[in-house]
Structures are given as C-alpha cells and as structure tokens.
C-alpha cells in the first residue's frame, strides 16, 4: 500500500438523515467516480480499504466526520480533496485531507463538541436544567439499543454544557421572532457512548425540561481534548506537522 489519507468531511442539511451505511456506499461510489486509486482488501469479495472513525448517528449533522482511505499510488491531499468533494452529493462535503503519519486517528478522537438547537424552548428553563444536570453526580438514562433497553450514566462523559439563546432562524417551524435555545456541550467518547439525545433525556429527568419541537443536533468538532480550552482540537494536526501540504 502506497499511502493512507485522512479525510475530514461534513454531513450537512438534509443529508444528516444518512445512516452510516448510506455514507459508506456514497463514499465508495464517489471514490470510483473520482478515479481515486483506492486499495482493495484481498480475499473472495474484495472491498475498498476505507475506514470510518466515530460516525455521527443518523439524523445528526456534523462538521467533523473522519475517514481514512488507503491508496495504491501516492496522491496529493489537496487534489484528492477536490476530486472527492466533486464526486460526493452536495451535503456530504470534504473539508480537509492530510496524509496519515504515525498513530491511529481513532485514538485521537477523545471527545466531541456538539451544538443542539432547540427552537421555541424557554431559555430560563434551559438554563436551570443545565445547572441541575451539571451539579448532579450521576444522571441515569435509558436508551433502546440493538441489544434492548440499556441503562447508563449520561453525566460522567459530559465535560462541559452551556446554554445560549439566539434568534430563531426563520426556516424552522414556529416562525421568526421566537427564541431558540442553543446547547453547546463537550462530551468525552466513552463506552457506552453518550450522545446529545442522552443528555437531553437527562435534562428532562433532572429538571423536567422538554423542548417543544425536535432538536437539531450538529457535531462541530471532534478530536483530542485540549486541556486549556476544554474543547476538541484538530485531530489531523499531528499528521500535518512537518508535512508539506
């Protein structure tokens, strides 16, 4: 294998409804359309060597998804970025490509920064619920998983959680001139994984806080947690160091 490339891409707008499988099919086809010399696994039914790290759930938008492609001959990261982006449907947008150096990308993804927009929610109630949640030592929630109902703590993984208020953006139902609460949270990647909807469930449990309309969730970043800012840093930085982009 000649080279491994690490790709940061976004999942935006209506394409946030793609599942992980949908994305991997789309990427495989885009790679073919873009004539990228992807490496194939050996064996009876060879498949392209593309691996995904920490994909956001179906229905959640993201500005920071990562995948790694193995190619059979060296590619210039910027050319690959352009070609892959042009071949993916709009809404799956390639943001950054670097050549992989040492280490595992997945290991660098220690936590995520999430933004949760809650149109029509009451800012004061949100504020109160956040305070309640953050002071609790543990908040047990349950979620239906493939293996049935699971019980776990939603509090421990949450490194930070704040609530802000913004003007309603006018395409969301409920119309303009309505408040929109925005939650920003940094959640550490632990097992079992705690997702923003688990935190929302936690807010409901601790303070009976239930937003009036479905939340819209976006992952803004994921990467190594920076001790000074408390937020995820760029996980591709380590690959960029000393590299000629």
């Amino acid at each position: 294998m000649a080279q491994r490339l690490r790709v940061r891409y976004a999942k935006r707008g209506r394409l946030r409804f793609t599942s992980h499988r949908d994305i991997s099919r789309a990427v495989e086809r885009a790679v073919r359309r873009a004539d990228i010399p992807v490496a194939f696994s050996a064996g009876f039914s060879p498949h392209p060597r593309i691996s995904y790290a920490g994909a956001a759930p179906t229905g959640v938008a993201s500005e920071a998804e990562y995948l790694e492609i193995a190619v059979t001959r060296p590619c210039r990261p910027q050319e690959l970025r352009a070609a892959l982006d042009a071949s993916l449907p709009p809404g799956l947008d390639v943001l950054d490509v670097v050549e992989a150096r040492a280490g595992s990308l997945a290991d660098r993804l220690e936590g995520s920064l999430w933004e949760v927009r809650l149109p029509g929610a009451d800012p004061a109630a949100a504020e109160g619920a956040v305070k309640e949640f953050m002071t609790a030592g543990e908040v047990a929630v349950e979620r239906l998983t493939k293996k049935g109902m699971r019980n776990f703590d939603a509090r421990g993984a949450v490194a930070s959680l704040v609530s802000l208020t913004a003007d309603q953006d006018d395409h969301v139902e409920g119309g303009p001139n309505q408040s929109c609460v925005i939650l920003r949270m940094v959640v550490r990647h632990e097992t079992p994984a705690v997702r923003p909807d688990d935190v929302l469930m936690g807010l409901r449990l601790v303070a009976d806080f239930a937003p009036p309309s479905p939340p819209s969730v976006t992952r803004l970043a994921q990467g190594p947690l920076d001790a000074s800012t408390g937020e995820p840093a760029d996980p591709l930085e380590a690959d960029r160091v000393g590299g000629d982009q």
Partner: protein
Amino acid sequence: MSVESLFPRLEALLPKVQKPIQYVGGELNSTVKDWDEATVRWALMYPDAYEVGLPNQGVQILYEILNELPETLAERTYAVWPDLERLMRAEGVPQFTVDAHRPVRAFDVLGLSFSTELGYTNMLTALDLAGIPLSAADRGPDDPIVLAGGHAAFNPEPIADFVDAAVLGDGEQIAIAISEVIREWKAEGEPGGRDGVLLRLAETGGVYVPRFYDVEYLPDGRIKRVVPNRSGVPSRVFKHTVMDLDEWPYPKKPLVPLAETVHERFSVEIFRGCTRGCRFCQAGMITRPVRERSITTIGAMVDNGIRESGFSEVGLLSLSSADHSEIGEVAKGLADRYEGSNVSLSLPSTRVDAFNIDLANEFSRNGRRSGLTFAPEGGSERMRKVINKMVSEEDLIRTVTTAYSQGWRQVKLYFMCGLPTEEDVDVLGIADLARKVIQAGREATGSRDVRCTVSIGGFVPKPHTPFQWAAQADHETVDRRLRELRNTLRNDKQYGKAIGMRYHDGKPSIVEGLLSRGDRRVGKIIRAVWEDGGRFDGWSEHFSYDRWMTCAAKALDGEPVDVDWYTVREREEHEVLPWDHLDAGLDREWLWQDWQDAVNDVEVEDCRWTPCYDCGVCPTMGTEIQIGPTGRKLLPLTVVS
C-alpha cells in the same frame, strides 16, 4: 405563482420515521429546476416504496428527458410508508416530491409508472395525501392531470375512475409530445379548461382518456361495447414504439441514491421487445418488435454510466438478453474492458442453452461463479409446448450438465404453476426434472456438491396475450399442486436434499388476476380496499387477501359479476374484453389462433429467425425488427489519468 418547499415541515417529522433518508432527495444526478421558469411541470411517481421505485429505469428515463426540455421540469415522488403517512395526515403535510419537496398537487401532470397492478392502492394514498380528488370526474382546474404509463397501463380500466389519461408503450417520445400539447394549451390561455387539454391529447390517438369513452354492459355482466362519447375522440388508442434506441441512450445521468435500494447497479437496456412468443408473457407481446441497441452504443452507455454513477455493477437488461445479435461480442468486449477493475457485469438471462453458459462464464471472469438461472417455465414437455417455451428435456439436461462441469455448483430453475390446461402431472414433472438435473450434475462432476433450486410463480393471465381468454387456476388448485410437489421433493431420499423449492401461495395471484383483466367495475373494489386501509399490496407483510375478497363482495354487490367471474372464468372468442379498444398492435385473430394453437400443443417460431407470421404489430404500428449484427467491436477504453 411560486411554490414553497414543504421540506421544513417534513423535516420535523423525519426524526420519527424509519429510514428518513428516502424522503430527502438530493441524489447524485438529480435535478432541481426553477419553478417559475418552467411552463409544464411533471411529478413522476413510481407507486411503491422509494427503495423499489428509485431504481426504476422508466421513471429515470422520463425524468431526464423531460428535464432536458427548456420549458418543462420534472420531479419525482414515491409511496410513503404508513409511519410517515400517519404523521403527514396528523400534521397536514401533503404528498411531496423528493427533488424540491414541492406539493404534488401544484404540478400540471402526475405521471404514474405502473410496472405492476399492485401499485394501485398506493396511487390512491398519494392522490389523497396530495389533496387531489380520487375520482377524475371530481377534479378541477387546480388539479394535475393524472396520467398512467408502464406495462399495467395496457389495461387501465380498473383504474379508469382515478386516472385522467393513460399512455401505452414506450414513453420517451409521447412524454415530450404531451408536454408540448400542454405548453401550447397554456400559452393559449387554457381554452376549454381541463377537458380542453384532455381532448387535445385524446385526439392525437396516442393518449387514452377513459372519461371520453362509455362502457355498456350486457345483462349477464359482459361488456357490450366501449364507445367514444364525444366527437374527435378516436375509437381505438395506439401504443407507442421508439424505433431507434441508439438515438435515445438514456439514462445518461443515472440517479445514485443515498438510501439503500433493491437494485444497486447501473443498467443498460440492450434491446426492447421480444418475439420468442412465450404465450404467458405480457411484456413480450406488448413490446414487439425487437429493437436492438448497437454494440457501440451499449459500450458507450456502460462507460458513461459507470463514470456518472460510480456503481460497481453493470446490468445488461432486456427481456432475453442472450438473444442480442452480438451478445457474444458485447460480453467479451466489456469483460476485456473491465478486466481487473472491480467493475462487475451481470446479464439477467434465463435462456436454456450452452451459449448462455459461455456468456455467463465471460461475465463471471471478474467475479464469482455462484449460480446460473434457467427458465423452462413448464414442468412437462407438453406444458412447455402449450406456453411456447421451446425447451426440450434433453436441452435442459445437456445445458445444466455443461454448467456443472464448468464449475457452476448451483442451478436455479424457474417455473410457473396454474398454467392453462395444466394437470397435476405437469407440476409434478418439475420434481422429475430437478432430480434428473441433480443426477446429471453428480455424474458430470463426480461430486455430490451440486444443488438445484426450483422457483415457482403463480401464473396470471394477462391482457394482450394469447392467454387473455384463459381461465385462471383457482388458488386451491395451485396450492394443492405446490404442496404435492413439495412433498414429493421432501420424500425423495436420493436427491431431495440437493433440491430447494421456493414458491408463494396462490392467493395473491388471484388479486393480481382480478386487477390485470378487470374492467371499470373493479375500480370500486380498489377504492374499497384502500378505504379499508389497503396499502403496499406488493409486500406480503402488508397484503391482505381477505380484505380484497371482503371488499370485492361488498363493492360488486348487485352486479352480475364477482371475483371468480374476472379470474377463473374462461372467455369465449367474441366476448368484448375491457382492453379491446386499446391497441398494442397485436391482431386479435392472430392472438386467438395462438390461443387455439396453445391448447393443441402447437408451437410458433421466433420471427427474428423465421419469416414473419403476421402477429399484426409491425404493419399496425409502422414498425420493423431492428437487429444487428453490425460487425463492430468494442475497443479498449483509453485510460484517462
């Protein structure tokens, strides 16, 4: 008047439904045109779930062709699953297109593609969700023209109350022509309103407007006659045939969905039509004559399709792909071109001969040699004569022996049950054949590691075929024969374990039969079933035979006819059939003669290789057989780096 996107309202519902991605559109190569810049706007619907409907070639072709017209735009809509339907009703969100999420009712035309009759109830859901009155007679100036096409539209009588118009045959040219008629009518200020434009369409002789025809019945329930009820409307409506497929190399920009669908490949139709003359096959009868795409066009379409879509699998479609005059060259040329490239080729062919295996070998060069499929269709020699499937037992055994000895381990055989004149022995003949196949396979390979699966479908007599007069077998008979066959195979100590059997029970075929050969009175049943909650009739988990029968009994109460009358009753020669005024080009006398020949075990040849036997199509439609060979070859593609 601009039309707002329904997406924000739909978006709020999507987190609550299964597989929301199917409703968001945004497929690669999809098109969103400016609403206000178009004069004629089409919503195209495949009335089944997105995962089945999206890959449909008919819709993709029309979508692309219509969007190429400067003043026309086309978007797509599919059947929504019951979970979303419930939410849409609760929130008042109407049926939407997936391209720009515009309300279907805002379009000028709602074009439905019916490759099967089982989509009828889904059409009613869509109309109702769209806010379009179910009965064509109740529609006003703000409602689209509801237009049916696809194979089932060759007998649109059961849905005559619900559609404004229907088109028979190839859609490429007629869709453009319809768009033009509507554009002119609009430019002139819509003279005559809705009826005005429908009349213009009907007068062409190429668009059927059911409302312009009255059906009169005899006291015993048979049809007396079908006559136009206004002047200018022709007494017969003709099908459409595209004559030079090389000039219509669509789809050029295949739609590539994000959601998973039933058919994840790029398909090229290598020819249309089939004149093998299988008497049960409606597709073969209504798509005559054979029109091939040339080897060079096929090569160019495959190359373009892979580049445009990124699909790794290519299918060469047609009704009998191995019959293309240059299929050997096509297979070799493509296999050479894509050798070692991870592009795999498939040829859905079921022809029973050694040549077919050569082709399969060529196509499996890049991949696995899993299973081969052959379609003898009838279990006994006599049965195969009746249906005009000219395959002898010897041919079949010779062919499978070759297949097994060349490394294929699994052979699948397609059959039908419930064919005209069929008796128990004909169906049990399937077991004999399967045993002989395994025996031959074991001898040829010296191994016990050979398998055969028999797959059996229920036969449904279809309009415009020689069997249109035939009595459909009742489901008890079909089920009993299949049970006996299954027991025979199960009890076979020597071969039974190597033989698999796949089949369905006979009840759905009765409903399909009712819808296939029904007349306008059947529309009441469809409506009653839909009102009772009937949806997605092509899906066994949603289909309810009992609901259909209960609703039929109620809807036909007081009529001299019932479900049996439509299905298991044999028709006599001069009975007026509901679709007699719709012309597929087939000469009625020829069809009747072919039906008589069937009953007498007389076979008919293929007109590609023997003289024309006057089925009527070519002179009626002004068409002719278009086949190669062209003598050309596929050259290697120059590598673009």
